[in-house]
């Protein structure tokens, strides 16, 4: 495959491309799906091919094929070059790439317990146990839906380009996804998507206390469903859990600091950004607690990589430092436009996807308090541990979250469950009203969607428990 990728780059250059890049990309996945304690089926998927990206007279094109022989590669290269050439007359602002130190490396994630060490069917008792744990945790309500999808995957890539990149990588990934609905007569129902994921082997299933997590979660949801009260209507202090804080950092900081969005490349898809190029290094939108990092080098993380898909070395990026927009996420195209260096943020979902600017593992830096300290002087407040519904506008400013596991804080202690509290807040209001953060740093997985055709890539999102001062909570409509 290496030879085919190198051939693609050489052939594109011979056809006149000023830059050429080829990525052999293979993802092999196997999965089990269950409803309750019964199997629906098993599955396997292999996605394998070569994606070629070229620049021709400042015009960019990408082409991909699953046909892995010289003829297939030749045809796809010709298509890419011809596409770029055809449209070059319409490209008034010519596309260039920043000059970078490009990597030549080979790396892989070593696992403690390889997927092959167990037969696929041996995961079934584990998944059944999770269902039983959820079932047994309920005292009064009914577990009306329990759907589990479990998958394990090996992702392999060879990235080469005409600037000398040669990056070979092999990363295992594991993902579990559970959809739970709990119902109670006269109170309706509540639901949660629970997910675990990491770039690890089967050891993840032993490290993560999934069964305990599900039991606790199900119990809390049951309490909220049956005995949950509406949140106070006055302005109160609100404490947000790491899962919600992580999601807010992903949606309200990571996405708007993607340089391609800032520059309008996603305008007709996921939208643009509240950040403008001139704000970098200057604009203060948050307070001293607003320190946000995107770090692809966290071992075992879902967003793990050491070199990006343009061959640029990965590194942690500080997006906000003490409330100031510090650094955008860049690939080589956006870096050239903004006259900076790429910080290695180029990722692609599979061989058929162009590499674009992406997050990896995005989090709010933890503070120095204990959780108890965070809530001890709150007379009346709400702790929102996690959420179900959420969305944000296309400039990434106005957020909305509906809390799922949520509790009243009374006289400094967690108390009665709160049902369906709605947090509507702007990114700026959140970042500037953080009154404290505890020492926790917990990560939660997700699949981030972007680009057209849409690409979903695995990420982690995280942070500490965070207190924000004096805000209004709403309540979601209930039939």
């Amino acid at each position, binding site marked *: 495959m290496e030879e085919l990728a190198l051939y693609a780059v050489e052939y594109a250059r011979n056809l006149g491309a000023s830059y050429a890049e080829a990525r052999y990309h293979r993802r092999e996945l196997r999965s089990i799906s269950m409803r309750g304690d019964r199997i629906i089926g098993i*599955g396997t998927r292999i996605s394998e091919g070569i994606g070629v990206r070229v620049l021709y007279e400042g015009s960019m094109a990408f082409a991909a094929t699953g046909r892995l022989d010289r003829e297939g590669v030749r045809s796809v290269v010709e298509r890419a070059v011809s596409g770029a050439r055809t449209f070059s007359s319409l490209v008034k602002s010519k596309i260039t790439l920043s000059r970078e130190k490009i990597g030549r490396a080979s790396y892989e994630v070593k696992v403690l317990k390889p997927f092959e060490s167990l037969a696929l069917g041996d995961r079934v008792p584990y998944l059944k146990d999770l269902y039983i744990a959820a079932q047994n945790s309920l005292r009064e309500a009914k577990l009306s839906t329990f759907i589990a999808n479990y998958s394990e995957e090996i992702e392999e890539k060879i990235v080469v380009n005409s600037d000398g990149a040669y990056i070979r990588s092999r990363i295992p990934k594991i993902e579990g996804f559970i959809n739970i609905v709990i119902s109670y007569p006269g109170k*309706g129902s509540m639901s949660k998507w629970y997910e675990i994921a990491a770039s690890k082997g089967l050891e993840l299933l032993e490290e993560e206390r999934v069964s305990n997590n599900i039991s606790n979660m199900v119990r809390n949801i049951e309490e909220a469903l049956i005995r949950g009260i509406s949140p106070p209507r006055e302005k109160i202090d609100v404490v947000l859990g790491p899962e919600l804080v992580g999601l807010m950092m992903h949606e309200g900081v990571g996405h708007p600091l993607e340089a391609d969005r800032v520059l309008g490349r996603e*305008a007709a898809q996921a939208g643009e950004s509240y950040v403008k190029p001139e704000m970098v290094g200057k604009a203060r939108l948050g307070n001293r607690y607003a320190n946000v990092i995107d770090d692809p080098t966290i071992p075992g993380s879902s967003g793990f990589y050491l070199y990006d898909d343009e061959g640029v070395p990965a590194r942690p990026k500080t997006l906000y430092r003490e409330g100031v927009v510090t650094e955008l996420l860049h690939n080589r195209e956006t870096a050239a436009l903004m006259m900076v260096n790429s910080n290695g943020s180029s990722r692609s979902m599979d061989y058929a996807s162009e590499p674009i600017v992406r997050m990896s593992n995005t989090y709010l830096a933890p503070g120095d308090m204990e959780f108890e300290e965070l809530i001890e002087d709150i007379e009346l407040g709400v702790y929102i541990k996690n959420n179900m*519904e959420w969305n944000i506008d*296309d400039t990434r400013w106005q957020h*909305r979250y*509906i809390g799922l596991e949520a509790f009243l804080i009374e006289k400094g202690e967690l108390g009665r469950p709160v049902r*369906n509290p709605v947090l509507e807040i702007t990114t700026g209001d959140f970042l500037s009203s953080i009154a404290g953060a505890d020492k926790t740093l917990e990560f939660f997985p997700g699949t981030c969607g972007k680009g*057209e055709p849409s690409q979903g890539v695995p990420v982690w999102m995280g942070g500490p428990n965070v207190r924000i001062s004096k805000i209004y909570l709403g309540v979601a409509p209930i*039939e």
Partner: protein
Amino acid sequence: MWLLLSDPIYIGEKILKAAEASGFQECAVLLTTTDRSMVKIVNSQPGIVQSWRTYSTSIYVARGERIAQASFDTWSLDQISRKISELSGNIDQLERSMLYAPLPDPDPRARPLSKAFDDKIEKLMEDPRDIAEMMINRAIEEGVERVAGILDLGINVKCLATSKGFNACEKRSFIDAHLRSFKGEGSGHWGYGSRYYDPKELEEAALKSAEYAKLSASQRSIEPGKYDVILSPMVFGELLDSIVRGFTGFSYLVGTTFLANRKPGDRIASEVLTIKDSPHREDMMGSTGFDDEGVSTREVALVEKGVFRSLLHNSKTARAMGTESTGNAGWIMPRPWNICVEQGDRGDEELIRDLRRGLIATNNWYTRYHNFVEGIFSTVLRDAILIVDNGEIVGASRRMRIADTVNNLLTNIEALGKRLYKVKWWEITTPVESPYILVREVRISR
């Protein structure tokens, strides 16, 4: 031509034999070849031109009521045969599937559509520059500052072979394009998709995006609350994407739908609303003559005059619910092909007059459910949100949300437009044809 019809039939038969040799009692093979080009417009010029030539193979196998699926982006028979044999080793460790049903016998009515292909699209793929340029220029000529969007076109051939003896191929084409125009504080966005090339429709998408950008160039804040709202086909189309997912037999069986406590015959919407799945609308991008099990597709009324009529079934969900397939397989999950909302009796301008006072939501995204069963959701309105007073557009609002329930939304529909629009863009995955829709008392939040 690159897409050779003889190849998939040959390969399909080979895979069926490999599955039989591995001891599987049933097998279905779905092969798709796609030749596709996409121009991404960024800041009023091409940002990237993408093209794909892909072979995709999906396989369903069953033995002793245990089921497995596999998919490959390759026609490498060696690789596929190895995986079939691996699945054969794995499947015996499993219990019987709770959803198993035998593959259906070949359906004599299941025939490929003959008019799902437009050869003009094949020609356009060689150089789609003129259309891309026309869309950019038409919007810019209307006075907008910049545009972004997508022009996506291609051809594909889908072939299905089953161990029950079904064997057919269908050749299709598609073109979809969406454009977002910007002016001042405002923006407008419109998308269109079809199996046929019609430059007038593409031009109209560009003009509508420009018109909405201009109408929303200056914006003001409005207060959250209940508003009467006209939903554009783009907005209702996006909402139908998730609403119609609730009509699949799978969602119903596993209890993840707002229909969980309803049954066919129940009133679930205003009597002016009729929604159908229409796979034989050959002009629409989801059209097909047979489903993934080789069952003939047909028009299925989901909602008729406000009454819940039918779910969408494959043979598995149909068997579990004691009914018959509606020709909507997906081997595990049934799916809609083309969602069609029946036209109403009002002109588009008449709807605005009838609205009298309220909002026109022209585009949205990010619809998320707090709870599928209760149908509690919110969606972010983006691009032009037009303010109507006294039956006329008097301004535009800053971004807001609809935060309501599916039940409220469907029951509060008062009227529908006469004109139907075929809409498709990034947020609408199943092709939709819908008119503008007037809904009373919609909960609007920030």
